[in-house]
């Protein structure tokens, strides 16, 4: 029995254990110096910041990696411990989404591929060296030449230098470089823009600049093209009093509930709606640009009633919409996502483009010049083509780099089987996935945080990848692999760095390159070009215009989720720990059904149903979801794989919903980890407008105000701009070493998140999100009940929890009206090597200890330390908690409430500020800014 346990038993058997106060650490430990200290000035208390680029989705946000020096397994070394957005980055402006925050979980993923492997005849994996890799590939290539097969190279969205290198490589070895593989290729939008404007690109949507946003299906705040950017823009747009946002969708999405007017439209009927809009605008001559008569005539005309009847939109809504649209200065219409991912998606996209055109398109709102970098992303036409060729045994050596078609393509496309037909498939990936598992050879790629590289998120913006940590395994970057193949030599690595630098220097010159390395990005000028419409093409397209037969059937919708994206992020445990904002389900797959369906089939949450589609079938537990229209059943990409996929033969857009599905109860019941106890706020005084009559309860608390010296830390959270994206929660997890507890604990209701997003459904039409964390009350109910002073109030207005003083009575948690306190039921530890990401500035709590939000006290401490060095007080903006830092909409403002000029103070004393559960007299330091009235009149 080791000393610790000994004392533990002792503690209960005899009071003499009082002799010992510390029984918790290992008996004796080592301190390991460096052999050679690192060149960077980095030591405990001074982390290093490396600017690089996020690769969790094609948006490529700017990243700032916090690197700490710490001792890990008796190795003193540098480890990335936190990801943050680059403050002034043109895409994410310092913000970062939950997926971005979870990037570290990929870097330290237990399933990282550690060394190159190849299959032998029996199909067992053999570990080989890189030189063997090179030779092996070489002679595979020999073979295929003899066989006369074509070698192909498939990779995910790539651009920048590496793209050039690939092309070079493909030329040298006679590879055919296939268009990049992205599940969400937005093919219809590209196609439509090509039809209408001769530009096969996805433009930048400048939401900030518009005063009227009409979005059809595009989940702009979640996954659509560049969510974080859109979210930021959205928060700016909100500041404009006249900004209006109509969102039309056949299902319910996080984006939808943010719109001022969320309008449910029958699937596939957007086209009717759009034609109605165009025609009406012309009839009422609100158009800014004219169209030739014959073209106009080729667009079908619908009466108000018809439209309403066909689309399921209320007439008054339509009229209101038209009214506001025609009044708008420079409106912006975005159709995408689910509205373009169906049989009439292309028409929708084209009409959208047309509508945008006649409403006067400007590069202010729709920017084709700095177009998104989607040109070499392929469509499902290409995929289908590839599959076909695989079937024909035409493919020889097959490189699959950083992409997981096997995991993402519809089940009934049998990619795996077909992949086997390639004579030699080589998977390049950082983590194991379905595809690489099926390959003949696996080459471990270094994670982007371990490697050099560059990217081009959109035309005119270049950002860099810099290594923030030595490669942890025997892995290489794609560039290095290609180069070593080119030079037929694997010995010396970091070829690619030089290659990259030459390339960058040649492209941008010395100074810009160094700027690029310093800031993480640079902007370059892009030639302006006048946007012109190709009337004839449009006419040709519209001539044989197909009017959809909208018939309502039981529908299965596959929507991408803010947590899973196209499924690539679902194996990051953090993103499973954090609940889905709308249903608050954390782990596992589920099928969201409408209230109507639930009552019709008498389903309770967790009842299992069988979903039958032609011959494909799967079983899923259901969750009743408010606001979900009848007949629409929702599942998320990633958590559930697309069962049967059909696509648009013209554009190659994948269809997101499957018609005529059959649901049948299996009778089984699956416990769903639903974290929310109730979606109904019950007038508890947590939401703003409910709160107003809370003030009636007069009478004042007894105790005198306690004075604060210099600081009183406080927060203002703008519910106006909070979109419930959970980025704050993710950031908090990583920053504060919050334990990840898993499904079993969640089922018991033991989640550990310090900040959580509470969704509340308002009279069945809107959902409002309230980020809830420790409110750091002045009269905190949790403090006086603690017998050992573990919870107390410090002079700076923080409600402090002294972890190693806590004996775990849990009274504080019971007595906290916000239930913001979390108890460590077990010793939860991240498994190796994930534990490399622990933040050394804050403790890892043992079992039996209560923990909670500390306003990131470690950051406050650091700032005060710094301030003290040049003896002054901490200034505004010096301390930014992780949540506030990462919030894409900057909804959270942190500051010193003692300082009258601080932003936080001003907001806290603005007329729309209120405190949650104010009537309990707890005097929270967190102030919520209520939504403005007119949003409720709508």
């Amino acid at each position, binding site marked *: 029995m080791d000393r610790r346990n000994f004392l533990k038993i002792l503690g209960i058997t005899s009071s003499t254990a009082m002799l010992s106060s510390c029984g918790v650490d290992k008996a004796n430990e080592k301190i390991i110096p460096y052999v050679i200290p690192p060149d960077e000035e980095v030591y405990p208390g001074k982390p290093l910041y490396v600017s690089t680029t996020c690769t969790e989705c094609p948006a490529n946000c700017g990243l700032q990696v916090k690197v700490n020096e710490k001792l890990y397994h008796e190795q003193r070394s540098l480890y990335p411990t936190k990801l943050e957005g680059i403050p002034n980055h043109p895409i994410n402006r310092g913000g970062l989404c939950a997926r971005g925050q979870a990037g570290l979980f990929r870097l330290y993923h237990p399933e990282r591929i550690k060394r190159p492997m190849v299959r032998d005849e029996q199909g067992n994996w053999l570990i080989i060296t890189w030189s063997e890799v090179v030779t092996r590939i070489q002679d595979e290539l020999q073979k295929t030449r003899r066989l006369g097969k074509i070698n192909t190279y498939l990779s995910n969205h790539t651009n920048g230098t590496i793209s050039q290198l690939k092309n070079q490589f493909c030329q040298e070895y006679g590879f055919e470089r296939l268009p990049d593989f992205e599940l969400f290729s937005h093919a219809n939008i590209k196609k439509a823009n090509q039809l209408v404007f001769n530009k096969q690109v996805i433009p930048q949507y400048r939401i900030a600049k518009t005063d009227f946003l009409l979005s059809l299906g595009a989940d702009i705040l979640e996954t659509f093209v560049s969510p974080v950017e859109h979210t930021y823009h959205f928060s700016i747009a909100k500041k404009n009093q006249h900004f209006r946002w109509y969102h039309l969708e056949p299902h319910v999405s996080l984006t939808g509930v943010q719109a001022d007017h969320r309008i449910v439209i029958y699937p596939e009927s957007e086209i009717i709606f759009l034609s109605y809009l165009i025609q009406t605008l012309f009839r009422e001559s609100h158009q800014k640009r004219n169209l030739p008569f014959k073209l106009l005539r080729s667009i079908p005309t619908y009466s108000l009633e018809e439209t309403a009847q066909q689309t399921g939109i209320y007439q008054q809504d339509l009229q209101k919409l038209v009214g506001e649209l025609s009044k708008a200065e420079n409106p912006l219409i975005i159709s995408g996502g689910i509205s373009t991912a169906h049989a009439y998606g292309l028409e929708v996209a084209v009409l959208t483009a047309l509508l945008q055109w006649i409403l006067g398109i400007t590069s202010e709102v729709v920017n084709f010049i700095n177009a998104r970098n989607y040109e070499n992303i392929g469509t499902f036409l290409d995929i289908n083509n590839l599959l076909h060729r695989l079937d024909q045994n035409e493919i020889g050596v097959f490189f699959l780099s950083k992409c997981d078609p096997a995991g993402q393509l519809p089940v009934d496309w049998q990619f795996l089987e077909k992949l086997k037909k390639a004579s030699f498939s080589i998977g390049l990936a950082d983590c194991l996935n379905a595809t690489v598992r099926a390959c003949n050879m696996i080459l471990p790629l270094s994670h982007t945080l371990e490697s050099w590289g560059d990217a081009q998120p959109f035309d005119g913006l270049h950002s860099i990848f810099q290594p923030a940590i030595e490669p942890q395994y025997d892995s290489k970057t794609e560039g290095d692999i290609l180069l070593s193949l080119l030079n037929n030599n694997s010995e010396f690595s970091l070829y690619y760095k030089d290659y990259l630098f030459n390339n960058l220097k040649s492209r941008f010159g010395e100074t810009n390159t160094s700027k690029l390395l310093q800031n993480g990005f640079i902007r370059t000028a892009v030639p302006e070009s006048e946007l012109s419409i190709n009337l004839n093409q449009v006419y040709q397209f519209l001539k044989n215009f197909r009017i959809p037969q909208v018939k309502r059937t039981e529908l299965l919708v596959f929507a991408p989720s803010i947590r899973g994206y196209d499924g690539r992020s679902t194996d990051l445990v953090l993103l499973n720990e954090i609940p889905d904002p709308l249903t608050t389900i954390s782990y596992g797959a589920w099928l969201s059904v409408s209230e109507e369906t639930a009552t019709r089939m008498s389903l309770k949450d967790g009842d299992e149903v069988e979903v039958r589609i032609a011959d494909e079938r799967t079983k899923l537990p259901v969750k009743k979801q408010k606001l979900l229209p009848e007949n629409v059943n929702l599942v998320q990409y990633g958590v559930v794989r697309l069962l049967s996929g059909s696509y648009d033969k013209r554009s190659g857009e994948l269809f997101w919903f499957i018609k005529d599905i059959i649901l049948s109860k299996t009778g089984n019941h699956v416990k769903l980890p639903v974290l929310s106890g109730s979606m109904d706020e019950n007038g508890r005084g947590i939401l703003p407008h409910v709160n107003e009559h809370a003030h009636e309860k007069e009478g004042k608390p007894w105790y*005198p105000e306690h004075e604060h010296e210099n600081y009183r830390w406080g927060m203002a959270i703008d519910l106006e701009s909070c979109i419930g994206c959970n980025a704050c929660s993710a950031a908090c997890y990583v920053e504060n070493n919050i334990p990840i507890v898993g499904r079993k604990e969640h089922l018991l209701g033991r989640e550990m998140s310090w900040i959580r997003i509470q969704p509340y459904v308002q009279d069945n039409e809107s959902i409002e999100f309230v980020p809830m964390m420790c409110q750091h009350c*002045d009269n905190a109910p949790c*403090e006086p009940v603690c017998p050992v002073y573990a919870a107390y109030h410090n002079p700076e207005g923080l409600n402090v929890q002294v972890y190693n003083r806590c004996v775990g009575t849990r009274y504080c948690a019971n007595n906290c009206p916000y239930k913001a306190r979390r108890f460590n039921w077990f010793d939860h530890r991240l498994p190796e090597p994930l534990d490399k990401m622990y933040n050394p500035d804050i403790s890892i709590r043992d079992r039996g200890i209560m923990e909670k939000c500390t306003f990131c006290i470690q950051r406050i401490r650091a700032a005060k330390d710094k301030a003290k060095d040049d003896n002054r007080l901490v200034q505004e903006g010096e301390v930014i908690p992780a949540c506030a830092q990462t919030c894409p909409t900057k909804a959270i403002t942190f500051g010193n409430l003692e300082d009258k000029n601080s932003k936080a103070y001003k907001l806290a004393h603005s007329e729309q500020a209120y405190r949650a559960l104010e009537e309990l007299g707890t005097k929270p330091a967190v102030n919520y800014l209520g939504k403005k009235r007119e949003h409720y009149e709508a």
Partner: protein
Amino acid sequence: MKNQYRFDEKHQFLEKLENLIKDGVSSKKIITYTPYPVHEVEHILKVKASPLRFFTLIGALAGLLFGFLFTIWASLDWPIIRGGKPIVALPAFIIIAFELTVLFGGVISFIGYLLLSRLPDFSKIQNPEEYGNQFVIQIQDGETR
């Protein structure tokens, strides 16, 4: 040499006792042994009320005082704000003070009792005196008590 009277019945015993007092035997010389407390004896022998109450009183007061002083001092020794309540929160300390009053009062009166009645008496532990259920009167030659 002390002489002893044993009785089986209480009333006989009491009569004898009264007679003895009448006969002018100093009550100081008399020791009685009874199977259970007999209050009449005290009246007959005119014994003063037991001084035990002073122990009790002192104990209780000490407890009360200590209770308040200790809590107040300890809170002021390291003043820590909790829930905005005043550092010296008397309404809360009353409870501690009360409990300590009872504790001290009780314990000290017990100790007082042991002192007053000279217990534990080790010699008697060795070889106990037994009188069964009888009522016994002993008359000492010398003065005891």
